[in-house]
């Protein structure tokens, strides 16, 4: 677009100032808050008060923090899953379905085999089962991609719906293994107590929604970070993500790398689902379906620029928005919980746009027409 003989041009930066890496997300958040404030004002709410409430209920009050951390636990997992795949340009959109399958797999292990295992093995077994189930769910799209070149975007997406219906079927549509045999009310069968972890009370006598699985999620993030930074597998994926032709020259197996990354991604999301069983749910719980943690994980990962440690931060941030938002809805000046979702979307859109400034510089260039 040329206006008044001048055109705005993007010029690649030679040196990327370090401070930009922080400034862009921060500015995105600030601008998103401003946009949110506009919508709040337009619908007759007081933005500052709403934000203060949001902050309090999401982050600073006791129940706020604990609820946030509780919601962040599975969100960290889906965020890690997305980051792991997306940094290799593999678009696993199916974290949602892999999460559910992880829940199913974990519940199966918790019901079927946990009883015959010593307690110290029970929980890891459930987690592994969840991981396996999640990996299984992404295996078909991974295979299609490797063998036939089918795009994983649509295939993983479609399987989300199949997974959703599967969960519904297991609880509402059938009377099988996963149903609670003690009641005709449609709910899941509870797992062995040995695989349950109680909520953390943080040295108080209050009941919170934070579970020790939070630490497992954080450990997972650290482990993945270490894996990518130090291991050969992490090295090879880094090379491949940067330059597939270099990977070919070095004799790396592209198909193996891509397929394995997808499988690991699915497994991580599956672990999140299993954590849900170990922590709050204790069974297959369709209630998990409502929250849309899979898609949110992608947003969390994108905002963290696919850095595994940063995912912990962004997951907590987004969880806090949700929690604070839902509290807002119930407050004296009810603001729809949706404001939290609006803010999430706005932050991401802005961060995306802002990313361009990290890599490029704006220049106004005089255009001479021949």
């Amino acid at each position, binding site marked *: 677009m040329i206006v008044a003989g001048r055109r705005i041009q993007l010029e690649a930066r030679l040196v990327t100032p370090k401070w930009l890496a922080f400034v862009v997300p921060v500015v995105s958040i600030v601008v998103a808050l401003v946009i949110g404030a506009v919508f709040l004002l337009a619908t007759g709410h007081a933005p500052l008060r709403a934000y203060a409430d949001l902050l309090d209920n999401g982050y600073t009050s006791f129940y706020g923090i604990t609820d946030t951390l509780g919601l962040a636990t599975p969100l960290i997992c889906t965020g890690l899953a997305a980051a792991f795949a997306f940094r290799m340009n593999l678009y696993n959109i199916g974290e949602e379905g892999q999460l559910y399958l992880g829940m199913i797999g974990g519940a199966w292990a918790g019901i079927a085999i946990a009883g015959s295992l010593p307690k110290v093995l029970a929980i890891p077994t459930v987690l592994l089962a969840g991981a396996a189930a999640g990996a299984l769910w992404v295996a078909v799209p991974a295979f299609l991609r490797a063998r036939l070149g089918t795009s994983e975007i649509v295939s993983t997406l479609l399987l989300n719906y199949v997974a959703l219906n599967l969960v519904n079927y297991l609880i509402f549509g059938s009377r099988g293994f996963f149903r609670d045999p003690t009641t005709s009310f449609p709910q899941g069968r509870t797992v062995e107590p040995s695989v349950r972890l109680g909520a953390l009370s943080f040295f108080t006598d209050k009941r919170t929604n934070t579970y020790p699985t939070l630490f497992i999620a954080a450990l997972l993030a650290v482990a993945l970070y270490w894996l990518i930074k*130090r*291991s*050969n597998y992490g090295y090879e994926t880094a090379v491949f993500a940067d*330059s597939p*032709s270099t990977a*070919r*020259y*070095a004799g790396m197996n592209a198909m193996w790398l891509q397929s394995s990354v997808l499988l690991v991604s699915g497994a991580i999301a599956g672990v999140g689902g299993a954590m849900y069983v170990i922590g709050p749910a204790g069974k297959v719980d369709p209630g998990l379906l409502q929250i849309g943690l899979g898609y949110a994980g992608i947003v969390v990962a994108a905002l963290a620029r696919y850095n595994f440690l940063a995912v912990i931060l962004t997951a907590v941030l987004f969880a806090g928005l949700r929690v604070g938002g839902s509290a807002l809805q119930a407050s004296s000046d009810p603001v729809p919980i949706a404001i939290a979702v609006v803010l999430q979307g706005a932050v991401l859109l802005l961060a995306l746009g802002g990313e361009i400034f990290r890599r490029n510089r704006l220049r106004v260039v005089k255009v001479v027409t021949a």
Partner: protein
Amino acid sequence: MGVTAAALEARGVTKRFPGVVANDHVSFDVRRGEVHTLLGENGAGKSTLASILCGLYRPDEGSLWRNGGELRLSSPRAGLANGIAMVHQHFRLVDRFTVAENVVLGRRNLPFVLSAARLEDEVRAVADQFGLPLDPRAIVGELSAGERQRVEIVKALYQGADVLLLDEPTALLAPPEVEKLFVTVRAMVAAGKSIVFVSHKLAEVVDISDRITVMRGGKVTGSVARGEADARRLAELMVGREIHLDRRRARRDVGDVLLSVSQLHLERDGVEVLHDVNFDVRAGEIVGIAGVAGNGQRDIAEVVAGILVPSDGGVTVCGHPTTGSGARGTRRAGLSYVPEDRLGTGLAPSLSIVDNLVLTRDRGFIVDRDTARSDALRYIDELEIKTPGPDTPTRKLSGGNAQKVLLARELVAMSGARVLVVSSPTRGLDVGAVEAVHELLDTARAEGRAILLISEDLEEVLTLADRVLVLYRGRIVHDSPGVDDDVEAIGRAMAGLVA
């Protein structure tokens, strides 16, 4: 004879790019009903001139003339509006479309509603007019290279081109398709079109050309008409005489055969890209493969390095057959490969120098970066690599410094690599860097390694190599016995003229 204005003419055209004068006061013209070939190696400036003639580039000095009137071309579209079209070496076609759809795509004044039947008729008419067998309904993605080229030519003719510039037209064609192309060219010429061939394959174009103009180093070095074309002289003009004719090499002590290539064949998409390649490289010698770019250099390098699997034949490294062992297996047998594409293949651009140093090593479960880091610091010092530090991403290094990293890794570090394959090691480097690289290769030879040097820079090959092979269309067409090199013979071989 009255002077008829040339169909298209360049007068005193000069074009500069950073660091090089691509065209230096070049004059060239083509007449109606004529085939005029621009002959030269890669980098001679012929592609630049062709790009100027069709409007892709604008000359810094000089002017263009068409049928007696001066011409200013601001873009290829302007060129087309003046009846000038270039057919590029790498086709710009939409695979999914039919031939007819591809041909009409560029036409500006297409009607809003398209009638497939009418368009097909129009395209068929143009194709038939010039004897180009084409099915307008065929899907382009399913056509052979020769057929796709025909589509590109018909596309140019359909849009009213009178002057066609064909960039390396025979490069992607098998010999029978080359014949078909020439039939087309004769038909076009008979209809009064002007054809400019841009090529290095003298052997192929010598019969079809009415005139041949040779370029070297951005200048026109000579021009001959049909009948005057002395192949020997043309090869000389193409390759140049600045190289010492009297090149004698001290006899070296060479050792055992460390790299052996026998009866290599490589097929890709049904086309044979390497044919019956045989040669050996001994310890303490540099064997150079000369040739113009695009004759199979990369394929040879990648087959020898184990990245590509040949359709037939075998590679033996230090006595071990490595065919089919893959890049890693070949490396373990004792071979090191420096590819011509530094930053897109040899190095991972966003990764640091340290990370790139471990690329071709055996890494184990955890990557040992500590050793790599101390190595990096050592190389930076010894090879005088200019960089802020070992953690700098390699894409921030200049060409010369990136090449030093690459050579440090493949040459210096890999002391166990008795065989070295090096492709175009000094491309794009400044004089100082070139010298440094040549020194490293000399040292490697003195250490008793076997080096295969593949380079499009003939001077480099002649300077460094003990034996010279010439690669043309995937075949070894010249193999000099050793000490004395017949530069003229080499030049002829590079142009495709084999005795």
